Structure formats: C-alpha cells, structure tokens
C-alpha cells in the first residue's frame, strides 16, 4: 500500500489527512486510483508531489516514498 498525504479540500473530502492506496506504478495510475476511492476528488485540480517534487503523470513511483496531493488555493 502507498500512504498519501492530503491537503486542504482533499483532506476535508476524505475526512482525514492520510489515505491508503493500493500500490501503483505511475502517477497517472495513482490519480485514477485515488479518484476511484474518492470520486469527489475528480472535482478538484491538484498537484502530485513525490518526495517533495511535483511530478507529471508518467513519473514512476518506486520504493518507499512520501506522496502528497495538493490543490491550489484561491483565498486572499
């Protein structure tokens, strides 16, 4: 399993700031996986960071890593 940190609206939708997701190979698959677990994530745009680097859909998720999902904020 992968442990994914959720920020802001994503944590509120999920009800807690961490989410367990079955291990996947790519960030694209991770996006599909979290959205199947929480369909409302499909309403929020968010960045995926692996080991504190924002990565694209083709990025390979390997070994132990820190994964975070971060939506843009727009309050000011």
């Amino acid at each position, binding site marked *: 399993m992968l442990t994914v940190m959720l*920020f*802001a*609206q994503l944590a*509120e*939708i999920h009800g807690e700031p961490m989410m367990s997701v079955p291990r996947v190979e790519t960030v694209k698959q991770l*996006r*599909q996986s979290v*959205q199947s677990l*929480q*369909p*409302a994530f*499909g*309403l*929020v*745009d*968010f*960045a995926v*960071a692996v080991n*504190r*680097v*924002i*990565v*694209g*859909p083709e990025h390979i998720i390997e070994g132990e890593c820190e994964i*975070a999902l*971060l*939506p*843009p*904020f*727009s*309050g*000011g």
Partner: protein
Amino acid sequence: MDELRYMAQTSLPGFGEEGQLKLLNAHVVIVGMGGLGCPASQYLAAAGVGRLTLVDHDVVGVSNLHRQLLFDIRDVGQHKVAAAARELECRYPDVRVRSVAERISESTVRTLISDADVVLDATDDIEATLLLNDVCCETHTPLVYGSIYRGSAQLAVFTADDGDFRAAFPVGSSRGSVACSLDGVLGPVTGIVGCYMALETIKLLAGIGKPRTGVLSAFDLLGNNQFDLALPKTHHVVEKQHIVESKQLGTELEVDHVTPREALQLLDDGEAVLVDVRQVIEQPRSLWENTLLMESVNDGNRDHLNKVVVFGCAQGKRSATACKDYSKRYPEGRCASLIGGIPALNAEIKARGCSHED
C-alpha cells in the same frame, strides 16, 4: 529620500544604500487589496518602494476589517484601492501610489504590468491567478503568489524559467475556494503570508538573499507544518477521467455553508445576494428586503456572478441542493448554503434590531 528612515535596513549586510536605491526606483504591481494585498503593500511602501500600482475592483466591507488592517470603519463602502492609496501616501512620503479600481482582465493586464519589476498575485480568484501567471511568463516578470485556504497557505515566486503556476497545478476546471470570509480565516494567517510576499518582493528587487523560485511552499499554519515542493520547469497535462456529475459521485459534493450572521454581514456589505429556494407560499417570508427567487439566477441574467449567491430554504437541505446545481451550471460562480434556512436568518435580523421588513 530620508536616509534616517531606512537606516535599519540599509545597515543590513548585502542591502546597503544600493539596495535602497533599487527599491526607490522600482515599480511593483499588487493585484488584490484584501487580506494579502493590505500587509504586502504596507510593508513595501514602508520599505521605500518608489511606485506601487494597486488593482482591485472591490469596496471595503465591515467583514474585511479583522484582517485588512489598512482600513477602518470610515472606509466601509469605499474602493479598497482608493482607501489604501490615501493611507499609504500619508504614512510613507517616498512612495507614489496609483490606484486602479477595476477587475483585472485580459484587455487591461498587459498595460497595467508593462513596466512592473515585480507583480504580486494577492487575488482570491483562480481565473485572475491564471491570467497573471500567463502574462507574467510572457513578459518575463516575476510573479509573487500567495493564497489562503482556512489555516493553510501557499507561497511561491513564479517565473517562466524556474516554474510557474501551471507547472505546479495542472488546472482544468477547479472551482477553487470561495472568498476567505466564507471559508473562514484568522487575520494573522493572511498577515503572515502578505508579509512573506513583501519579503520575497524586496529580495527580488534588492538582490538580497535567495529568491523563493522553483519551489511552492505549502504552510499549515494551524498545525505548524511547512512543505516545500520543488516545481517542474515544464507543464504537465492531466487528462480528466470524465466530466464528473454530482449524480455519478459516490460521495456528496462539497457545499460551502454560511451562518446567518455571516450571511447577513455579506448582504449588508453588498458582497452577496440572497435567493429563497422555497415555494412562494411557504412561510415565514424572508425579512431581508431584497430576497430573490430562484428564477432570478435561472433567467439568463448573469449579474449574480459578481456576488456570493446565498441560497436559503426552510432548514438548509434544499439550499444545499441548489448550491450543487448552481455550481454545475456556473462553475465560475460562488455560492453558499444558508445554515438554518430563512427562519434562522430572520431571527438574526430581528436580533440585530435592524429588521428590513416594511
């Protein structure tokens, strides 16, 4: 220039008289004069930045005063940029302030930032952020970005070379969050981020320290956490799985809620319109005199897109559904469901002793 005024910063190693002159000769454009723009403009003016252009179409509301400390009760109803310019020029004689009381738009943005050294995105509107991001990349102007969601904040210096907003966020149709006043925010949260934005601007202008480029900082100010995420230099494209309709969702769509007190404040400030979603025969009728019916947001009139649309019903259930429908129809709009419905709002109006009933 009054040298004594800036002595504390000119004596800072690496800043000096040279840094001060760079500030004096600089032009900074601040878009958004709310919780972030107020502290940012104040610190930049105090530091001796020579020219500030302030852009905001909004007027000061009573509910702004707890976090927008440039304003006081006498400014309520006035354009934020005018009130801010008056205050800043009075306190800081070396700064020339231009106030632009209009919404940033595709047709005006290039002229507004044409000779800016740095632009600050202090808006509460993701469309404005995207517009500023794209034009700043095009013109190679650094964009200092700050934004708030409740007790959390984001901060970055976006540049065309080291990563911009679109490199961080593969933005499609995000509704983003509604204004801070509805999401809820503590004044110091906006103050801290506004000060950070001023600091990043001074660093860029004076060439001191390490600019916060190539990184998006995410702060959880209530939980005492900070994450610095490295930005890619290219844009990612994320394919949406499908257009998500609320009916297809296994979970309920998020709906913003507003208490009767918050709703009344927004209505008083002219920042919101109230829509009663009940049948016309249902009692009690709303005591807010300008209460609209559902038809007014369904008849093609788009005036309500400038305001927060507060939906009210008998208890707060139908209004939540109305919010979801409204958000689907107007993804760019902002709306909230009135907690406790129209009866709770009536009670609040009566409690205030300012009933709007004829």
